[in-house]
């Protein structure tokens, strides 16, 4: 029984290694190829209004997080398609891969962590009660190459 398990584990290890070396896969990879599909293409961003981070302007959203996302899209050479909506419907769309990013002054305490990927905090602020809040963004669940690229970009902005 134990020997059987050992050889199975070995097979998986060798298989995984062969896959990595053979196909030149980079780690981490996206199960749904989000990073590759967004690069040089379209970045669909959900915006839930929450000034001063996100506000609805005359023609396009504005706010500090909107500016951040614009800069991020530039690094990917991607056009942004803004989708305005309520937080819950945006998160559901994100969970199902219909959006690539959701912003709206989300904080590290967000309950959406159960459904989608929440970035590391990129900045700190104080809410109306004077409590310290860590600002985050929401990404599709399990798209780890894309998540890592987004977090690298946010941390490089040095806003903390």
């Amino acid at each position: 029984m134990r020997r059987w398990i050992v050889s199975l584990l070995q097979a998986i290890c060798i298989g995984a290694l062969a896959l990595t070396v053979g196909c030149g896969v980079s780690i981490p990879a996206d199960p749904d190829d989000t990073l590759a599909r967004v690069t040089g293409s379209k970045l669909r961003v959900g915006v839930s209004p929450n000034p001063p981070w996100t506000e609805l302007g005359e023609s396009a959203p504005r706010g500090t997080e909107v500016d951040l996302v614009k800069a991020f899209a530039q690094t990917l050479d991607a056009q942004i398609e803004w989708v305005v909506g309520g937080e819950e419907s945006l998160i559901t769309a994100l969970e199902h891969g219909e959006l690539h990013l959701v912003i709206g002054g989300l904080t590290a305490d967000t309950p959406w962590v159960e459904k989608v990927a929440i970035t590391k905090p990129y900045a700190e602020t104080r809410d109306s009660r004077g409590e310290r809040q860590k600002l985050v963004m929401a990404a599709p669940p399990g798209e780890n190459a894309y998540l890592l690229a987004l977090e690298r970009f946010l941390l490089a902005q040095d806003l903390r």
Partner: protein
Amino acid sequence: MTDIAFGRTTLPAHQAATLRRAIRFEWITIGFLVVAVTLVGLVLGNSQAMKAAWAEDLLSLAPPIAFLVATRIIRRPHTPKWPYGYHRSTGVAHLVAGVALAAMGTFLIIDSGAGLFTADHPSIGSVELFGSVFWLGWLMIGAMVITGVPPVFLGRVKMKLAEDLHDKVLYADADMNKADWMTALGSIIGVTGIGLGLWWLDAVAALFISFTILSDGVKNMRSAIRDLMDARATTFDNARPDPVIAKVEEYLTSLDWVAEAGARIRDQGHVLHVECFVVPVDGREPSVEVLTRARIAAVELDWRLQDLVIVPVAELPEEVAAASPR
């Protein structure tokens, strides 16, 4: 150095030294596990396999704690209220540890299975360490490599001690430690799977780890319940009937006043509780002196024999007679 006694059984020098080593190694195990639980807890992230491995490390604390608590309690002397002494505390501790493992294993199987069923894609992002940003998965794999190896060595040492001491909690603990590298490897495979974009590999690895936890729990429960139910005494690994049974029966049968003899032996934790039935030759009643001499000699056969009675009978009880080799 004072003598160590389990109830009224004073440990022979060799076993006393073994016990001291076992206690030291269980403290080392606890120290290691506290470090491992902290380390793995810090990098846990969203990997279900890592969660299962972390839970297993946490639960691995139960057998060493059970051992350390039980080895204190069983030293208490017999009293009128506790006429059989406190030996059974080992079995009770063993059972508690087994139930905890089985319950956690079951919970994790359900949790991991649900994750697989609903196709949860685990998200693992970045970590910032020493000024550079990299994927947290690498840190998880590192933590599992570090924490996966030492238990194997601890397990090997404790296995030997468990045999010398005839201690089934120590045996179960050593057995679990020896297999711990599979848990570490399992979670490494799970995290590597996430890294490669194979989200399901994490849940599969978690299921594998959960099943090993459940199987450890069931094994421990069975062994503990066996002894608490007064099953025939076995060797420390439950592999075969304890050779001491045959030894006692052989000795009694060799006495010239004994026609037939059989023993009923139950494992009290370390020491054994023995009822010997003897059929005297020609039905002649043995004197108290003859019986006492036989008792003292029988107790000398093994350090675990102390609580031993010899009952002259006209005919061996069925279950004893059936088991005796003739």
